C-alpha cells in the first residue's frame, strides 16, 4: 500500500472562562489552615476573616458539636471554599432546602 498514514496527535484546547476562585478542603482543614495555605500574602487574621466573609454558606452553619472530631469547626470535608469575593447576586428562593 502506498498510503503512508501518519499518526497525528490532536490536542483540542478549550480554555475555560474565569470563574470565582475556589478550593476543596484538605482533611482536618480549619479557617486558619486554609487561610495560611491559600492566602499567604495576607496577615493570617485578615485572611481568615476574609475567607469567612466569602463563605457564608459555611460560616453561618453551626459548628460541629463538642465530642465530635471536628468540634468547633463548621467546615465539612466536601465543602467548596471560595478564595475571593462574589461578583454578583447568587442566592435563589430555595435557601437551604433539601432535595
Amino acid at each position, binding site marked *: 500500500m502506498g498510503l503512508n498514514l501518519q499518526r497525528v496527535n490532536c490536542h*483540542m484546547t*478549550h480554555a*475555560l*472562562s474565569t*470563574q*470565582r476562585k*475556589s478550593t*476543596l*478542603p*484538605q*482533611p*482536618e482543614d480549619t479557617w486558619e489552615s486554609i487561610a495560611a495555605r491559600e492566602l499567604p500574602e495576607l496577615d493570617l487574621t485578615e485572611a481568615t476573616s476574609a475567607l469567612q466573609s466569602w463563605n457564608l*454558606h459555611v460560616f453561618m452553619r453551626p459548628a*460541629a458539636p463538642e465530642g*465530635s*472530631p*471536628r468540634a468547633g469547626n463548621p467546615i*465539612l*470535608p*466536601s*465543602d*467548596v471554599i*471560595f478564595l475571593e469575593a*462574589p461578583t*454578583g*447576586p*447568587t*442566592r*435563589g*428562593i*430555595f*435557601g*437551604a*432546602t*433539601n*432535595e
Partner: protein
Amino acid sequence: MDIIIKNGLIVDGSGLPAYSADLGIEDGKIVSIGKVGGDAKEIIDASNKVVSPGFIDPHTHFDAQLLWDGQARPALAHGVTTIVPGNCSLSLAPLKAEHRMKLVGMFNQIEEMPIKAFKEGVEWDWETFDEFLVRIKKGLAINVAPLVGHSVLRLWVMGDESMHRTANPQEIAAMQDLLKQCLAAGAVGLSTSFVDMDETLQPVPSRYADAAELDALASVLGEFNRVLQIVHEFYDIDLTIARIDQLAELSLKHKITTTFSPLFVNADDSELPKRVMARVDEQFARGARVWPQVQTRPVDISFCFEVPSLLFIRLPSWYQVMRFGSHDDIVSAFSDPERRAALAAEAQGMGDLWESLVLRQVNTDDNQALVGKTLKEIATLRGTSAVDVMIDLSLEEDLQAHFLSANMGHIDDDVIGPLLAHPRVHIGASDGGAHILSFATYGDTGYLFSHFVNECHALSLESAVKKITSDTALIWGMPDRGLLREGYVADVTVFDPNTIARGEEYYTQDVPGDGSRYVRDALGIDTVIVGGSVAYTGGGYTDAANGEIIPGAVGDP
C-alpha cells in the same frame, strides 16, 4: 408473534420524524417495524396514537415503594418503563441491620417519606446490594436502574464515624471494594449529596467525604463505566459552577458520565441557568460529561402540620416544632398565646407567602366552604391575618388542614422551554416516590408533552420523546433501550399526543401504615409495555411482572 401494535405513529426515540407503521413484539423484543402481518396473541390498535419507547425517569426515590409496589404506581401508568432510584446519596442497600433505622430517619428527613410506612410496609430481609435486588425483583413490573448511595457505603464501612470525619485510606479501599460489589450486582452508578441533612439536622455521611474519597470511588465507576449523580448547592450560582468543575475533572480523569440535579429556574435568580449552561457547554467542549437535570413541572408545595414540611426549613421555631414535636406538642404551641405570637412574628420573615396559600383540604363540614380560597381571602372573612388563619384552621381541623403554595418557582416558560430543549440538558429531577406529602412527583412526562410540546411549542413531539427515551438510555448506559429498533427490548408506550397530560393532584391513602400521599393520574396513556408484556392499559394495571434490573449483574446476557 406475541403483540402487534397496528397503525400507530412511530416516534422511535431518535428524534427523526414520525412515520406510520406497525410494530411487532416477540419474546420480549421488538422484532419488526413496518407492515407487520400475520397473527398475534394480542393486537393493539394504535390508530391516531403515538408509539414510542417507554419513558425513562432518571431521578427517583422509589427505593422503599418498590418493596410493596413493584409497579411504582402511578409512574408506570404515566408511560414510564424504567426508573432510577437511589439518588442523592441514599439507597436501601448495602445496609447492615443495625443501621436500618438510621437510614429510615434520613429518608424521612430528606425525602419526606413516612417512618410508619417503613415500619409497616417493609420486611427487612436483606443487607447486601445483591440481596436487595433479589428482594425487589419479586413482582417487579417496571425496570429499575438502581444507584448506590454514597452515604450508605460510608455507613456500612465506617458505622457512626461516617457522620463525623473523613475516611482513612483503609476505609476508602473498603468502600471501593463495596462499590465494586454493588456495581457487579447491577447498580447503574453512585449517588452523593453536598447539601442534605439527616434526621438530627446534621450533614449526611457523604458530606464528610473529602475530594480524595470521591475521586477513589469515581475511579471504580470508571472501571465499570457507570454514572456519578450528585445533588449540589442548587440555590447558588457560584457553588453550582464549582461543582460542575469538580464533576468535569472526575469525568475527564476517570472517563465517566456525571449528572447533577436539580437545575431550577427562579424569577429572582435569572442569571443562574444562563451561567450554569455556559459552564456546562465549556466543560462538554473539553470532553467532559456533566449533565444538568431539569424538571418540567413548576414547584408547588402542599403541607399540613401533622408532618414536617421543607417549606418551613428557613423558619427555625416552626421547623423545630414540626420536625421534633408530637401532635400534642404542635397543638400546644399553637394554643399558647406567647408561643403563637413568637411563631407569627418569625413567619413575617417569609413576607406575603402566607396570603397566597390556598386551603386545599379539610375534614370538618364547617370549613368545607373555605376550600379553594386563599388565606388572604379567609383572613378578610374572619377579620384576622393569614398566619392566624393558618394556625386557627389547623387547630380546628386537628392539624389536618392542608394548604397549597402553588408556583413557588420554576415557572418561567420562556426560560424553561429552551432549557428543556437544550442538547446538553437532561430532562429529569422528578423525585418520583419522594416528598409524598408535599407534592405529586408523578406526571412530569405528561406535562412535558401537554405544556412544552402542545402549548408552548418549545420542543417537537419527536424531540420530547428523544429527550426522555434514547437520550436518557445513552446517558445512563442502558443497552438496547430507549429506541424502537428491531432487536431492542420491547419497552413501549402508546399514547394520544393530543391528550397526554398529568391529571389533577389529589390526596390518597395508599401508603403502608395508613399513610397518604399526593398523586396525579395519567391522561392520554393508552398502553404501556415492559419487556414485551402489557403492564398497563387505559383500563388499569395488569399482573405482568417483566421488570428488569438495568444494566444488570456483570456477566448477565
